[in-house]
Structure formats: structure tokens, C-alpha cells
């Protein structure tokens, strides 16, 4: 019985097969990383094939794990290869450095992101912060950002415990979790934005 699910699985595993075969032959370390990222997509496809709301909720952790490891590995790669020079030096455009336009655009993005809240909102607001940092070639202290990301993580865990042990306070927990993820995604995106800038 070749149902739709099996056909989907066949396509996804065919992709995984092609990707893995490419990985066995690839010798360049950077290309290996990119190829693995490609193969990850096949596993997301297998999760999506469940085809329920559960699948959508499982894709998020699946995606995040891939992105997180990709980030850590790319930093290890830079150290391992001994790259010290930074070819990307922000957006060194004089108009952007001076004019108030990046401030306005960033403020708009951040406010809109906070209104949206949740994961998407965090992404949009984070994009605003990254854009601002890049246009001003900001560099330096992101200890504050790391602290904010730690606080948002704690907020999230607190919300989880409210959900589990005080279920009648679900509204508080929902707002806590939504705020936690908003802060988390904003800070993480800003950290990524700051990390490719010029060294101090």
C-alpha cells in the first residue's frame, strides 16, 4: 500500500541518500558543513510528513538544533583555520553611518516585532537590531546581550514550571513564555550580528 506518507518518505530519504553520498566524497571542511546543513533539511521533511499540528511543533526544535550547532561549528572552523582578518566590515556606507535612516528603520522593526511577539516577532526585532549594529559598525560589549539572553531563558523555564505545577495560572505562563522567546530571539540575532563585525 503506497500511501502518500510512504511516497513522501521515499522522496525525503532519497534526498538524504544523495546528501550522504556527497558527504562521503567531500574533502573540504567548509563544504562538509554546508552539505550537512543540506541533509538536515531532509530530516525536517521527515518530521513534516507526520502532517499534524504536532509536526509543526516538532519542526521548531529540529530546526533550532541544526542552526545552533551550525553557529558553534562555524566559529570553531574560523579558529581552526586561523582566520584572523575580517573581510566583512559592516556596511561601511558613509550615508548610513551619519543619517538617521537606520535608526528609524530599526526602531520601526523593533516596535513591530514587539507587537507581533513570539518567535516571528523576535526574528523581526532582532533583524532591526542587527541592521542598526551593522550600519553603525558597532562593536564591543555584548555582555549585556548575553545577560539578557540568560534572563529570557530563565523566564522561559519559569513559565514552563507555572504551566506544569500551577496550570490555573496558564495566562501568566503564556505571557511569560511569549516574552521569553521574544527576548531570546532578539538577543540571539543581535549576538550573531555583532559577532561578524570588526574585532575591537
Amino acid at each position: 500500500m503506497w500511501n502518500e506518507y510512504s511516497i513522501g518518505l521515499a522522496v525525503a530519504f532519497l534526498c538524504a541518500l544523495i546528501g550522504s553520498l556527497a558527504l562521503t566524497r567531500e574533502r573540504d571542511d567548509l563544504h562538509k558543513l554546508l552539505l550537512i546543513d543540506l541533509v538536515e533539511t531532509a530530516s525536517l521533511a521527515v518530521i513534516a510528513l507526520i502532517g499534524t499540528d504536532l509536526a509543526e511543533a516538532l519542526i521548531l526544535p529540529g530546526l533550532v538544533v541544526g542552526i545552533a550547532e551550525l553557529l558553534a561549528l562555524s566559529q570553531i572552523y574560523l579558529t581552526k583555520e586561523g582566520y584572523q582578518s575580517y573581510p566583512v566590515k559592516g556596511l561601511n556606507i558613509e550615508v548610513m553611518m551619519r543619517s538617521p535612516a537606520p535608526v528609524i528603520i530599526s526602531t520601526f522593526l523593533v516596535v513591530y516585532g514587539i507587537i507581533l511577539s513570539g518567535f516571528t516577532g523576535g526574528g523581526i526585532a532582532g533583524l532591526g537590531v542587527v541592521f542598526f549594529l551593522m550600519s553603525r559598525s558597532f562593536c564591543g560589549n555584548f555582555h549585556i546581550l548575553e545577560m539578557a539572553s540568560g534572563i529570557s531563558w530563565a523566564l522561559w523555564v519559569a513559565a514552563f514550571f507555572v504551566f506544569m505545577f500551577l496550570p490555573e495560572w496558564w495566562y501568566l505562563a503564556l505571557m511569560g513564555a511569549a516574552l521569553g522567546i521574544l527576548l531570546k530571539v532578539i538577543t540571539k540575532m543581535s549576538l550573531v550580528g555583532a559577532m561578524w563585525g570588526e574585532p575591537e
Partner: protein
Amino acid sequence: MNEIGGAPLFFLEFGDIVIYFTPFTITLFLLALVFTVFVLVSRPERQIDIAFGGDAYYAKEISLSELRFRRFMSIACGLACMGAMVTGDVFDFTLFVSLVGICNVGIVAAVKSRHVQNAAYQYGLVALAGTVPLFAAAAMVAATTGTLSMLELAKDTIQVPLAARALLVLGVMGEGMAPFYAAKAEMFRAPGAPYVIMCSLSSLLIFLRVAEVILLL
């Protein structure tokens, strides 16, 4: 249900994810706990180099930041191990195993030598590739049985396809690849050695646990 690790002693319910303790998992849990406490209290050994042809020797200094970072990673790894030992949900198990994998990358990658960094990178690539079969296995379990809870899957009426089990094992193998690298002499002799033990221990523990999960499914 078939009880591989003995009858569950008690349950800890977190919504759909039920954590349960059987004699088997409780043993592994305590092992992970004890080793995490060891890591917490132990001080890293300092590597001693002896100069040939004389009485001179010198100890390599470990910077405080490196020590803190590796200790933090080892403790996180221990906590992730404890989670993976007792969780009662297939997808949650795969997430904990990925957490163990990335903590191991962190423990190894903190060492400043180029050679060790290269090893950490190669191991990280395998850990990243290992998430593919892991998540694929969990998703196939959910799609073919309609549940992710190990307590439900342990019932005899539910059949998990062989391919999903094999993918799960392959994924755990990818995440638990660290001893292949840690076993290399350079890595163990790298300054601040005791934390590397956590790599080996965590791999051992997740292999033991996945054996139980596979027999349970």
C-alpha cells in the same frame, strides 16, 4: 507492557512528556549525578612537561576562563545525561542526546591547540549529521504509531518499524562519537584533562539508554 529495565518506580508528569524511573534508569541517573558532582568539585590536573637531559620540569598553566568554561560544559553535559537517562518520550530523548553531543563538542573545543580544534570540528560535524537520523527516527515513530510516549510504545500491541529503530541507534552513535576522539592520547593529555572523562561517560550512558529504548519499542 514489557518491562526491560524493571517496573517503573515512580513517574514525574510534565504534560505529554512523562519522566519515569525504573531500577535500570535510576542506576544510570545516579551514575550521571555522581560524576557531575565529581566534575563540580574536582580541580583540573596540570600537565607536566619534563625537559630532557636535566631535572627541569614545568607545569602548563590553565587559564581561569578556560577552566570555568570547560567545567560549565561538563556540568551541562552531566545534566543533559541525567535528562536523557530518565525521559519517557522519544523526541525528548533525541533532543537530550543532541544536547549531550553539543556539550561534548564544547568540552573538546575549548582547548587552544589547533590539532584539538580540528578534532573538535570533525566531531562536531558528525554530531550535527547525527541529528538527521535521530529526528527522522522520532518522526517515523510518531507517524507510524501515533504516539511518542515510551510508556505507550512499550505496550505489545504497537509495532515500531525496524527502520525507525535502526535510525535511532545510528543517530545515537553519531552523537556518542566523542570517545573516538577523546581516546586519542593528545586529547586526554591536553591541559585540564578530567573534563574529557565526561565525554566518554556521557557516550557510554546514552548507548546504554538507547539499548533499553530499542528493546522497549
